[in-house]
Structure formats: C-alpha cells, structure tokens
C-alpha cells in the first residue's frame, strides 16, 4: 500500500505571459519503508514536488494522497494538523527553534500533539540517543555543530511518529563526515523502524546511499528506479 501517491500532479507558476511548470504531470507512488531520493539539477522542481507531497503548498492540478488522504482538499488548518501527525520534516538548515534545547526541540511537536511531559521527555531522550546525541539533550542549537543540528532535526521529525519523513537537501550545508553520519543515522532508522524517508538532493553522497532514485528535470520525472533493479 502506498504511503504517498501523486496523480497527474502539476504546479504551474505564471511570470507575466510565460508559464513555468515547476511540477509537470508527476505520478509517483512511494510505499512504506522506502529510502528514496528525488534528484535533479537546481530548478528542476524537486523542492516544489517535496513541498506538494508535504502539504506545504497547493498543487495547481492533480492529487497528492497521503495514506489515501487528499491533501489538496484539506483546509489550511487541517493540513497543519495533518502534517503534525503524519509527516516529519528535515530542512536544509536553520531548522531548529533557537531558544529551545535539543530535547525541547524534539519534544516540541509532541507538545503540539498534547503529549504529557513524561512521555515527551522519554521519547525525546530516546530519539536523541538513537541519533547519537546522548548527553547533548540540554544544548541549545547554537551549541551544536551543523551535523548535530540536523540529527536533532531528524529526531524531531520522528518524534510525532509520522508516516514518513521528508528531507529537503538535508546534507547541503554539511561536510562529508557529518553527511555520512547523518545518512547512517537515517539508514539505521529506516532499517530498524521501517521509517519511510524521501529526500530531495543533488548530493551524490546521498544518491549513492538511496535505494530508490527518482530523477526529475523541468518538473517531469525522467527516470525512476530502485538500486536493486539497477544493480541486477
């Protein structure tokens, strides 16, 4: 069963008389437990596609179904509520709330969900341990490196027990060591907990470790393959 499905998805911008098709008739289906990278050059439409899948933007045409819920038919308030409970996000940078500690950042979404302080604490500590930040619970983002901040963001994305995690160029500002460490963390979570990850990236290091690659250019999917098939 698909966790994410798009049907004839379009996002069209108008600049004067010209029409820009950022997403142009995309049909994809992502099932539970996939580790997928949406790749393509700058301006190819991968971030726009990710925004549509994440319900951060409305499509011009077509459907985005997350666990059979059509995001396009939801009100703004419903979409925010849906994101809170079903989608985890990791952004490129400056992802965390600067005035909160690592534990509070992870616990923040659970607080929005109405979870108890005890439950928040237990899960946040456990997730931070899982992403390799044990002992850094009380550090604010400014006291963490870029790689560590991204790992806190991953822990936060998982805190709400989402259906999948969307990561928009998560390694763009990281050095190779931090990139490798972050990808290992995400791979571990994918394998251990069966968490679905979808990245947008043009980082070859991420592409190398993704199991499914969706190549996109000018808003269209030009190639969609899984590594196992490719390897065969």
């Amino acid at each position, binding site marked *: 069963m698909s966790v994410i499905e798009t049907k004839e998805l379009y996002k069209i911008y108008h600049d004067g008389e010209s029409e820009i098709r950022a997403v142009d008739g995309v049909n994809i289906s992502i099932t539970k437990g996939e580790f997928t990278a949406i790749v393509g050059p700058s301006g190819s439409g991968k971030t726009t596609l990710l925004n549509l899948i994440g319900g951060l933007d409305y499509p011009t045409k077509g459907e985005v179904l997350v666990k059979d819920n059509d995001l396009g038919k939801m009100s703004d308030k419903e979409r925010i509520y849906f994101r809170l409970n079903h989608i985890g996000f990791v952004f490129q940078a400056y992802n965390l709330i*600067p*005035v909160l500690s690592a534990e509070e950042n992870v616990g923040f979404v659970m607080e929005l969900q*109405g979870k108890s302080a005890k439950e928040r604490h237990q899960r946040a500590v456990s997730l931070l341990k899982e992403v390799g930040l044990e002992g850094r619970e009380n550090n604010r983002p400014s006291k963490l490196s870029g790689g560590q901040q991204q790992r806190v963001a991953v822990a936060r994305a998982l805190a709400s027990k989402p259906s999948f995690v969307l990561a928009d160029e998560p390694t763009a500002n990281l050095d190779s060591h931090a990139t490798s460490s972050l990808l290992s963390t995400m791979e571990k979570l994918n394998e251990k907990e069966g968490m679905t990850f979808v990245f947008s990236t043009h980082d070859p290091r991420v592409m190398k470790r993704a199991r499914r690659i969706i190549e996109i250019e000018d808003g269209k999917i030009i190639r969609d393959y899984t590594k196992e098939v490719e390897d065969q």
Partner: protein
Amino acid sequence: MKKKISQLISISWRNIWRNKVRSGVVIAAVAIGMFAAIYASALATGMIKDKVKEGVEVETSFIQIHAQQFREDLDPSLTMHWSDQRQKSLFDIDGVDGVSPRYKMTAMASTAETGRGVEVLAVDPVLESNTTTIASMVSDGTWLDGSKKRNRIVIGKKLAEKLKVRLKSKVILSFQNQKGDIVGAAFRVVGIYNTTDSRFEEQFVYVKDLDIRRIASLDANNIHEVAIHIDNPEKLDEISSEVTQLFAKEEVLTWKKISPELGYSMEVSSFYMLIFVIVVLISLGFGIVNTMMMVVLERVREFGILMAIGMQRAKIFWMVILESVWLCLIGGVTGIVLSLVAILASQDGIDISSKAEGFEAMGYSTILRPYIDISELGLIVVLVILTGIFAAIVPAKKALKNNPCESIRTI
C-alpha cells in the same frame, strides 16, 4: 489548553531574550514612559489633593447648613434658627466631630490708605478651630481665642499685603446689618493666616461672633451658616443625609456642592492620569509596532518551519503577541516600581516656591507631594498589556501572511 498556553508563554519569554539589546531598549523606553506618566500624574494628583484637602479642611469644612437662598443672595436677613439643642443634635450624629455656627457677610475692609471687599466670617473661636484648620494656619500673631479683648480680627497674608497692614494695625469693617443699615467698627489685627490659596487669603477675614452680634445687633439664635467637620471623609454622603433629615427646612450641602470645582478636580485627577498614561502608551505603541515588525521580518523562515512541523497559525500569532506583551509588561512594571519609589522618596514634598506666585494665585501649594491611588495601578497594568497586544497585531498578521514553503525559502 493550560499546557498549550504555558508552552506559548515559555517560548515567547525566551524569544524576547534572543536580542537582549533590542528588547532592553524597548523595555527601557516603556519603563521611562510609564515612570514619566505616572510620576507626573502623581504630582498633579498630589497638587489637586492638597488643594482639595486645604479647601475642605481650611475653608468650607465637609458639610454646611444655610437658610434657603442664603448662598445665592448673601442677604444678611436670610438666617437659620440655631440653638444649643440643634448643636447637640449634630454632635450626636456618629462621625461628626466639629460644628461651627457662623455669621457670614460681605463687607468693606478699609485702612487709612486703601480698602477692599471681603467676606467676614464671625465665629466662635473655639468651635471654629475644632471644625476647620484655619487657627493652625495663623503664621503671624494668634488666633481669635488668644485675645479676650473686643474687635479682634484675623486676616489673610495676601489681604494684609493689599491693605498694607501688619499685626496690631487697625482695619475698619463696614457691612449691612439685618435691617439693611450700614454699620461699621474698627478691628485690631491679632493674627495673619497663611494658606496655599492666595485668593482665599485675600477674601476671608475672621472675627468673633460676639463682636459682630453686638455691632450689627444680631440674635444669637439666628445665624447664617453652620460648618460641620466629620472624622471620616468616606462617610460624607451618609452623614450628610442624616443632617438633611435633621435640618429639613434648611439647605444642607457637602463640600462637593459648595465648591464644585474642588469636587470636579478630584474626579478629573484620576481621569487625567489615565489620559496621560494612554497618550504615553499610544506613542510607545508605535515604537513597539516598529520593533515587532523587525522581529517578525527576521524570523519569517522560522515561522514557516513552525507551520511546517505542525504549529497552527493562531498559536504563532499569539506567540508574537505574547512577546510584545512581555516587553510591555516588563517595561510597564519597571516604570510603575520606579515611579512608586520616586513617589515614596518625595513624600516630604518638592519645594517649588520659586514659582510660588503663580501656583498660590491658582490656589495650589508650592510644596508638591506626589500622590497615587494604588488601586489605579491595576488599570495601568491592564492598559500596558493591551498596548502590547495591539502593537503586535499587525506584525503578527504579517508573520502569517505567507504559506510555509514561501516562508521557509526566505533568507
């Protein structure tokens, strides 16, 4: 719900300290504005309160009784019946601690050089000194009970200057008796009183009732007015209605009706402070709008991320509002505390006697004692909070204008 509010309060509190300098400047501006507004209002209120206190304690006392129409016509024949029994009935009212029967007439006070129109209050010196504080205002010489001799007069300092008289000088008082005849007599100045109200000093002179009765052939049982002092100003209306029941045929008035300008002054003083505070808060509000706008524009991306991870727009809106409320509240409370400290520190009074002429001419003291009604501070705090809320509405709306993906793209 409670948890969600405490979450917002906690985050907004931490957010304001992200940029300590900017928040400090806003807080300082609010604190200084509040201090200035409250302290200046307290000075004005203190001035008015002193004027009212002196007006009541020295001049009118709390309640007066007159024959009907006497106050309008000042006709000496419009007298009211007076007796020991009536006096006792007033003293029997719980809360009445001073009763002074008076004769009151307009007269011409003349000296060898000049003359002026005055109002003569002919009083029993002991009863009057128990009813008003005029006896304690005598700064030169003695009050009327200090002399057993006939035809003694106590006049105001200002009148003494105008008439160019000193202690022991003679002043001729000419006035109309009840028959309409002009009578007159020479009075020796035994005391000069000094109040903060130069108009009062210039207008009123005090003589003994016995002297006036003799000179104008007045009857001891027919007087012009009775001044009543009470021990608790809060009971004014209650006592006044009891007096009205006893003196149903006469006109019974409280000081607020006798001197409406004094009553009005008291009423407007708190309103005046409120207006002053509101004007200051409005002007500060514009500064806070500007600051909050900067705060919001710097954090558009952050708000986008908050929306993306599931924070509702309404919560972000209230988070920004609360940040503004915190700034105003800290500044406002600091300003209130500073002004209270300054008010307490200047309770001995601020001497502005260099400007005495103008102030005394308007009936105000030249020693300023700031006064604030503590119960009004609660209202000021509410106004400060409202300023914080209103000042942040536009910036908070701006924070939520974009959709999350547009906000996240903002650098």
